[in-house]
């Protein structure tokens, strides 16, 4: 009996060691929550991370570990980490840093969209005398350079006949910008929902945001894999994409509105901020994984603008960046081919999506 047992052990041990090629999937996210909490918010990745979609996908693969890194330095810091070979996936990387990374030779594939039409807010000190974009000229402002906030802000400025050179723009990360606004050392900043809390405390007012013009000025982020990882582990890439698509399916469904905001609130930003940010707007308007003509058109246009603004010095080939086959496989496998609406390059809807019929729970 003891012998049989020992033999069984041996077989088991051999089987494990034969299989045991431990693999760590290293995912980077360009941001942190309030007070540096290691949580994302406002996008598909935040749903996937907070509700463990990736970990669940690999729950039965003891040799596969998932490792998340949240970068306070946002996209620029994530790019450095990618360049150093410390990451396999860039999840939620913004449009500007991803284009900058590609222009500088980072080898990645564009797997799926994470968020489109994201808002930027302009927050100003109440006594600054700024009530519209044109008033910004000559003021001391901050922006988080190298992130998709900078590109969106640049586009807003140029639509109002200004550029960064018309004001004094200092580079501050999200947390430092809040402190600087609080202390009154800057007149205003471009940022996202973290500014709503400061407004509620009466420290800033928000004279401008892009929600009404999201198709024109909205920010984008997406999910990328390094070319090296993709070539070595196509099956794993497919499974990671499957998990993100499942998270996207959950996150875009109006029936989950409250649950999604609750997941995002793990970042430390209150649910009411997300409710306000998404007021009168369907979640699916931003949370779509699709690589449709609209998304392709946006990135092609952004790449040109980034070059015009002098933020890159080489042209970026956008079409060859996309690797939509993983997304298409995942959508088909989950029966979601017609779940999200499809838009053309100008932002006009060309196909309805099932998600538009989902309703807020309890209504």
């Amino acid at each position, binding site marked *: 009996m003891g012998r049989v047992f020992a033999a069984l052990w041996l077989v088991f041990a051999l089987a494990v060691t034969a299989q045991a090629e431990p693999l760590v999937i290293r995912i980077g996210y360009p941001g942190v929550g309030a007070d540096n909490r290691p949580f994302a918010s406002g996008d598909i990745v935040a749903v996937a991370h907070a509700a463990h979609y990736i970990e669940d996908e690999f729950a039965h693969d003891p040799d596969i570990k998932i490792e998340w890194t949240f970068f306070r330095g946002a996209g*620029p810091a994530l*790019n*450095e980490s990618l*360049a*150093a*070979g410390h990451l396999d996936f860039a999840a939620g990387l913004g449009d500007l*840093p991803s284009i*900058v*990374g590609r222009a*500088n*030779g*980072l080898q990645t594939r564009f797997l799926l969209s994470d968020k489109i039409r994201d808002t930027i807010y302009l927050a100003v000190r109440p006594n600054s005398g700024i009530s519209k974009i044109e008033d910004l000229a000559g003021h*001391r402002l*901050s922006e988080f*350079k*190298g992130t998709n906030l900078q590109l969106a802000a640049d586009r807003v400025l140029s639509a109002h006949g200004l550029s960064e050179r018309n004001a*004094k*723009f*200092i*580079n*501050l990360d999200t947390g*430092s910008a809040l402190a*600087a606004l609080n*202390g*009154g*050392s*800057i007149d205003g900043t471009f940022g996202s929902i973290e500014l709503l809390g400061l407004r509620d405390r009466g420290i800033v007012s928000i004279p401008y945001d892009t929600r009404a013009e999201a198709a024109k000025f909205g920010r984008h982020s997406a999910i990328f894999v390094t070319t090296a990882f993709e070539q070595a582990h196509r099956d794993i890439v497919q499974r990671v994409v499957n998990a993100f698509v499942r998270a996207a399916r959950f996150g875009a469904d109006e029936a989950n509105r409250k649950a999604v905001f609750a997941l995002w609130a793990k970042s430390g930003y209150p649910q009411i901020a997300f409710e306000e940010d998404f007021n009168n707007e369907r979640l699916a308007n931003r949370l779509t994984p699709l690589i449709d003509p609209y998304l392709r058109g946006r990135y092609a246009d952004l790449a040109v603008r980034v070059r015009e603004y002098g*933020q*890159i*010095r080489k042209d970026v080939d956008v079409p060859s960046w996309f690797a939509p086959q993983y997304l298409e496989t995942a959508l088909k496998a989950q029966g979601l081919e017609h779940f999200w609406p499809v838009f053309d390059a100008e932002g006009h809807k060309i196909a309805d999506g099932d998600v538009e019929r989902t309703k807020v729970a309890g209504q």
Partner: protein
Amino acid sequence: MSRTAGANTAVVVPAMLLVLWSVCSAKGWLPDQLLPAPSAVWQQLLENARSGDLWSNTLISLQRVGEGFALGAVAGLILGACVGLSRTLREMFDPLFLFVAQVPTLGWIPLLILAVGIDESMKVIVIAWASFVPVVLNVAQGMRDVPAGLRELGQVLTFDPWFTLTRIVLPAAVPQIFTGLREGLANAWQTMVAAELFASSEGLGYLISLGRQLFQLDLVLAMVLVLGAVGLAVNGGMALIERRLLRWQGSVRGQAA
């Protein structure tokens, strides 16, 4: 002959580093994004020079260092002289000053921002503080360490205090004072970069932080080269002034002896 030989020797190590750098990037030992080729850095330098960005930002940085260093050095000379000359003042200030001097300059930045904001004044004060500390310490030390024999000589010749100060103490302390000034200037230059990295919209340090945010390591390296070159030039100018003053000091000492 020996001078040119010295210059040639001084070129050897930088030249070797340049070759190593070229080979490194040509062979792709480090990814391009982390170590751009020397040619890319040179290109970046030329572009910045042509667009005028290089000059305007260098001038702004120099101006900040100039203002901060002037402020810190003058204040340091005065306090250093007082502390060096008066035993009472020394006993009053020494422990506190040594304590405060242990805090790295950058450690004061958060407090300063609360007090004066992040405008020019913050940068100038930080730079002034960085140069103030070594000046005070060295000036006080220099004045205290005047050889006892020289002081006794003054007493024998019944010099009044003012004469003792200008003819004995100051000349004897000049080398040490200059050590403090040189150290202070080097500190000022380094602190300028740190202050500009932190929160600014112009200056060499700003260009470095911009280069980092936009993933342009060639811009970062180009500005590092400029910083080194300008720093070297400023330091060289200081050494020149010092040599002139020391010659004067030598002749005074000759007279006194």
